[in-house]
């Protein structure tokens, strides 16, 4: 349309040239509209991201603080070892009634007579203030140093989950007493203890170190962190070499024929297969056929390796393709073998792309629960796994398990766990960006 033949243009040369409508206003408008659409799209994305982060952080930041009580616990030999047999029988110290020590300490603090008649109901409420986790806490103290028996020690003990929730204002205290787990008397004690600084919220280290627990206050992500770490290591150690080797062969050595086309289509397909399918495969192959133990992070790692492989292969092939052919020709031209060409020249140049793809694949694997469900990793695991063969869980699994709990205190922990998982994912993606920035080559 704008292509006007030369002789015509020459013919109208004498008179003033007519204004041709080249639609410039229309095209500017179209461009402005397009930019607006783009801004709206980004705005929607940012809005939802902000909404997600806001709800998660608002619901979860309190999980990083845990209500604790500072007690002067007297390690009374009459309670721990009434018969004086601790030297001959090591079980005495392991099975002593440690919660009683903590309860007595709290009673002393609040001026309640533990020996008085008719105080039983009150004492039960008092016991309910303190986490049952105090049993292991005090036991470990005594086992580590038996000489503290008979002395009085200042100990920070965790408050029970309901007291914790009430202290953080998550339990509606305006409903009638019979409808809530925290009773009026306990609320009164809480106020007394808070007023004199005995009950404060401290940083919740247990969230990172404890294993799974049915009591919210002693539930943590320790086992899940270790399980995820094992699985990531297994995925890295297996998927990276296998994926890179497969891509190098396919990209640099394999002949281009119908077979390699078929393999390529299949790899692209596998990348889109729902992850639960890999879980079914893992159950059939690794657990039922190979006889590997259920719930073990080794099996989880193998399943996630299968899931991550296509992602790594696709990313690696793209990175290899992006290396200019001139590099290969140059290397071959000065007499390098094809293998030397690949390992000395092509692979180092493709490394940033490969690493980025691997890290993104790992981040994807870190967030998966579905394939772990069938191999028994969606489970309550309280003990730390010593090896990848021991039962373990994973970070997203812990989130899922906590989301299904009935106790109020698990609500904030669920969001807290999501924050931790998001931080891990952000860190991994940041690493991918930094690696790319650091090593990227431009031609």
């Amino acid at each position: 349309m704008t292509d006007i033949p030369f002789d015509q243009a020459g013919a109208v040369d004498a008179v003033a040239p007519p204004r041709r409508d080249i639609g410039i206003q229309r095209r500017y408008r179209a461009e402005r509209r397009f930019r607006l659409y783009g801004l709206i799209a980004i705005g929607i994305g940012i809005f939802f991201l902000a909404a997600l982060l806001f709800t998660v952080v608002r619901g979860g930041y309190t999980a990083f603080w845990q209500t604790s009580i500072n007690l002067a616990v007297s390690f009374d030999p009459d309670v721990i070892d009434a018969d004086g047999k601790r030297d001959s029988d090591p079980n005495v110290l392991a099975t002593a009634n440690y919660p009683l020590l903590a309860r007595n300490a709290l009673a002393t603090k609040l001026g309640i007579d533990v020996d008085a008649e008719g105080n039983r109901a009150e004492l039960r409420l008092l016991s309910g203030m303190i986490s049952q986790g105090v049993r292991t806490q005090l036991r470990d103290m005594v086992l580590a140093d038996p000489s503290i028996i008979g002395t009085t020690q200042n100990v920070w003990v965790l408050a029970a989950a309901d007291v914790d929730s009430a202290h953080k204002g998550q339990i509606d205290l305006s409903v009638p007493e019979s409808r809530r787990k925290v009773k009026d008397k306990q609320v009164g004690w809480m106020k007394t203890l808070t007023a004199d600084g005995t009950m404060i919220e401290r940083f919740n280290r247990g969230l990172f170190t404890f294993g799974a627990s049915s009591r919210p206050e002693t539930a943590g992500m320790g086992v899940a962190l270790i399980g995820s770490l094992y699985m990531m290591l297994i995925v890295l150690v297996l998927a990276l070499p296998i994926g890179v080797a497969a891509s190098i062969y396919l990209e640099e050595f394999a002949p281009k024929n119908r077979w390699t086309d078929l393999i390529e289509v299949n790899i692209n397909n596998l990348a889109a297969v729902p992850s639960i399918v890999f879980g079914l495969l893992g159950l059939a192959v690794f657990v039922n056929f190979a006889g590997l133990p259920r719930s073990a992070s080794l099996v989880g790692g193998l399943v996630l390796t299968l899931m991550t492989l296509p992602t790594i292969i696709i990313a690696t092939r793209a990175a290899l393709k992006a290396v200019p052919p001139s590099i290969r020709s140059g290397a071959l031209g000065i007499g390098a073998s094809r293998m030397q060409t690949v390992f000395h020249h092509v692979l180092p140049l493709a490394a940033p792309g490969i690493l980025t793809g691997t890290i993104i694949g790992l981040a994807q694997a870190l967030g998966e629960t579905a394939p772990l469900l069938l191999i028994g990793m969606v489970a309550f695991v309280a003990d730390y796994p010593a090896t990848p063969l021991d039962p373990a869980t994973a970070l997203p699994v812990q989130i899922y398990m906590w989301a299904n709990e009935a106790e109020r205190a698990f609500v904030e922990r669920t969001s807290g766990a999501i924050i931790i998982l998001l931080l891990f994912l952000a860190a991994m993606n940041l690493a991918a960006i930094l690696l790319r920035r650091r090593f990227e080559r431009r031609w």
Partner: protein
Amino acid sequence: MKRYVLTASVAALALAATAGFASVRDQIQIAGSSTVLPYAKIVAENFSEAYSNFKTPVVESGGSSGGLKEFCKGVGENTIDIANSSRPIKESEVKACADAGVTDIQEVRIGYDGIVFATDINGPDWALTAQDIYKALAAQVVVDGKLVDNKVAKWNEVNSALPDWDIAAYIPGEKHGTREVFEEKLMTEGCKASGALEAIKATGTDDKAAAAACIAVRKDGKAVDIDGDYTETLARIDSNKTGVGVFGLAFYENNADKLKVATVEGVSPSVETIAKGEYPVSRPLFFYVKKAHLDVVPGLKEYVNFFLSDDMVGPESPLAEYGLVSAPDAERDEQRSAFESGKTL
């Protein structure tokens, strides 16, 4: 260098695989019902505190049917030891177990669970009967002696004592053991009480088809199947203040500051009324133990005995505090002696 990584990883894998075959599992593995899961977790945790020489058992979720399916995969180290279930094992499952070599199964009844209807805490009081529930939620109801599709839109249309709320009921999905209790104790009973069963039979359908018609729930969106856990039901009630949800008693008791519970047939659900048998909607909870594993997996026998002790399932136990309804004294004794004597199904 790449070559070394590859060789090392293959070697590591081979080593791990052989180690897997050689080691004897020293941790009890449990799977099954999400209703029993919280109880099993509490027992597992207390078990490891009481017996420091054993590891804490691993408890998987996955539903009664899923757990029993895993349980019936066979005998051996990589099969589970215990299946938790919120319903008795079925004949077909016993057969599947036997086919896979799991012949000696010990059944343990741990106590009872109540199923409650609850609404938002700020709503009016509810008094439901099985008949109301059937009339509101059945797929077909009897009008003037004829069977027609259920068109009831508000609760006060089925019973004028109920509030003027649109019907929105969140009931357990079909994979839940709870659904069976809901069908058996409420839909079937309501079907009989409202005379619908007679009317269905009068149309010439046989007993079996009539029973199936009784438990058919309307599919027009007024009764919503919840396939997740009770937390999802609670979230639905939070967003729809005029919704009615079905919960386990334990879950309700942990969230009594948000929920108001309905009476069923005039009885308010509580540990006491369920233990006495007054509250109609309750069911026993079970777990199943592989006898062949008892002497192999360390701590399994101790775990079951510990579970059955009054310290765990008695009326003053942590499980009762969480919401389990303890079985009467005689029944608990019976369960203990049955397990001790090695009685199998």
